[in-house]
């Protein structure tokens, strides 16, 4: 099991959880202040090349944070799937960013720094914060006029690894090198425009730079955990769920779940398209096992009351997909016991039987029913009449709400 991040609310309760956030905010504000971020001329100076101290702090923080994040992910301590990675809204991001840049050079602050300035009684900071409140008000009043733009160009959880199609470790190394190059260039600019002699800066920063690059290289060598690695870590805990049939649900339970409005039911039919077209449950999505990895982020982002039920003709493929989903931290995944074959054995009516005659013996993961027409979900067995069946079963579905908050970030 990957231990971090924690689900603080269920571990500590809300008041203590808030205390943790308060402490984090405290440290954030403290470090911003000691780094001089309450001083607007220093912040603005970045853009005149006289002093690049703010860039140095900023990019050092990004690199250090990134290295720690991906190092702890590489060794299986932190689950990258469960931390908040800002989703990409391309054009609102670009336009909003440009506007922020204008606000930065005119106002001399950004929200975080303005709060620290306000906290240390800088009057210009106080005015910036007041302006900020007005800005939020204006946004609320006007966003409706361009709501399609605001909600458009949405690409979901996209990382630099996805964009450049490079492994995480390579991106980490490249970002680290880029930052170090910027520091070198920055110090030269400070010398030219600001008259600062880089030779006066402590030599320790060279050792620091070497350490950063080494850590990046180690991260690249270890690599990020694959699904198999994740399952290997998880197996001691979850293998029993399979052997004790804890996650296999009866067709009767699935039928009842159709009508349980407290749950968001998502059915994943992982068979090939041909079988899916012959017969599938109403509202079941057809998704092949090789397409599962690309959908993990989307599944994790579903609301907390989502239950996934995976199904194949028997259980073998569905179980493989269950392992993939569960090891990638998708919560509340179950498997249809006996698969589609068992479902049809339970719910097939004369209508379906008219299309396929007798049940034939078959290989593993083959459909027992030889349909001579593709019924899809246009038949009674795809959505059995709830009133007709009163099946007994052992209830297995139980919502697991313990996972890190995925909604959030500064948005």
């Amino acid at each position, binding site marked *: 099991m990957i231990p971090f991040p924690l689900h603080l609310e269920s571990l500590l309760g809300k008041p203590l959880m808030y205390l943790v956030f308060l402490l984090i905010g405290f440290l954030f504000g403290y470090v911003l202040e000691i780094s001089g971020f309450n001083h607007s001329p220093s912040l603005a100076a970045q853009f005149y090349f006289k002093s690049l101290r703010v860039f140095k702090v900023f990019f050092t923080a990004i690199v250090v944070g990134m290295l720690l994040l991906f190092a702890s992910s590489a060794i299986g301590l932190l689950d990258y799937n469960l931390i908040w990675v800002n989703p990409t809204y391309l054009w609102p991001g670009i336009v909003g*960013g440009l506007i922020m840049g204008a606000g930065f050079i005119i106002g001399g602050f950004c929200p975080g720094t303005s709060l620290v300035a306000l906290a240390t009684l800088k009057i210009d900071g106080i005015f910036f914060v007041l302006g900020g409140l007005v800005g939020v008000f204006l946004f609320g009043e006007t*966003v409706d006029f361009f709501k399609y733009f605001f909600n458009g160009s949405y690409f979901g959880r996209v990382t630099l690894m996805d964009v450049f199609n490079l492994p995480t470790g390579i991106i980490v190394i490249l970002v680290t090198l880029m930052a170090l190059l910027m520091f070198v260039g920055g110090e030269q600019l400070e010398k030219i425009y600001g008259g600062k002699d880089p030779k006066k800066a402590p030599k320790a920063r060279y050792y620091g730079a070497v350490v950063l690059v080494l850590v990046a290289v180690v991260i690249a060598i270890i690599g990020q955990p694959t699904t198999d690695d994740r399952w290997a870590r998880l197996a001691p805990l979850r293998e029993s769920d399979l052997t004790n049939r804890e996650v296999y649900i009866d067709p009767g339970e699935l039928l009842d779940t159709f009508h349980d409005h407290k749950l968001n039911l998502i059915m994943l039919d992982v068979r090939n398209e041909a079988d899916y077209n012959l017969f599938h449950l109403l509202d079941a999505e057809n998704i092949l096992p090789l397409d599962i990895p690309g959908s993990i982020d989307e599944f994790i982002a579903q609301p907390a009351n989502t239950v996934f039920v995976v199904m194949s003709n028997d259980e073998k493929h569905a179980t493989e997909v269950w392992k993939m989903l569960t090891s990638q931290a998708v919560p509340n995944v179950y498997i249809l016991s006996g698969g589609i074959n068992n479902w049809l054995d339970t719910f097939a009516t004369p209508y379906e039987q008219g299309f396929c005659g007798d049940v034939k013996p078959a290989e593993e993961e083959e459909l027992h029913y030889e349909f001579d027409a593709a019924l899809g979900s246009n038949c009674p067995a795809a959505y059995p009449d709830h009133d007709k069946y009163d099946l007994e079963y052992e209830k297995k579905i139980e919502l697991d709400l313990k996972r890190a908050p995925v909604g959030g970030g500064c948005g």
Partner: protein
Amino acid sequence: MAENTSHKSDKFQIKNLFNRPTQPYANPYLGGVLLGLVLFASYFITGNGLGASAGMSRFAAFIEDLIAPEHVDQVPYLIKMAGGQLNPLDSWLVIVTGGVIIGGFVSGVIHGRTKFETNKGPNISNQTRWLFAFLGGILFTYGARLARGCTSGQALSGGATLSAGSWVVMFSIFGGAYALAYFARRLWN
């Protein structure tokens, strides 16, 4: 006589708290390492990064809700935060923002940097600085809500987690600032 001296020394201590000698800021690379550690700790423990504009946004919604609650219930952007009985301040984002203010204050006091003053370029008046700080604040926060995050939430946090959108926002912020730097130079130089 004895009471007078002790009374004086109490006042002396409290006055001293806010009159500590002003110390220079920390080495930037060291500050960066510390900031990176705080950022990592936040993700490691809570799964969320740092942020500031969302806290301000919720505080603004709170104020609007006090003044005109019926209006808040009609603005889609605000309903999510403050519509009906929702308390916009009941959010970890607001708590972090509160912590930032407290942490900044404490650090400022310890290092003798908490004092009423206006920082500005040498060639403008305080009032000019205040006006442009106010205007800049309006502009920046408007942009931050549009981009769904500011330099802390998108550039710093999203940057470290390698979110593609966050890097786009980061470069847009710098691009916008550099583009206008020449026109704003009188404010700072």
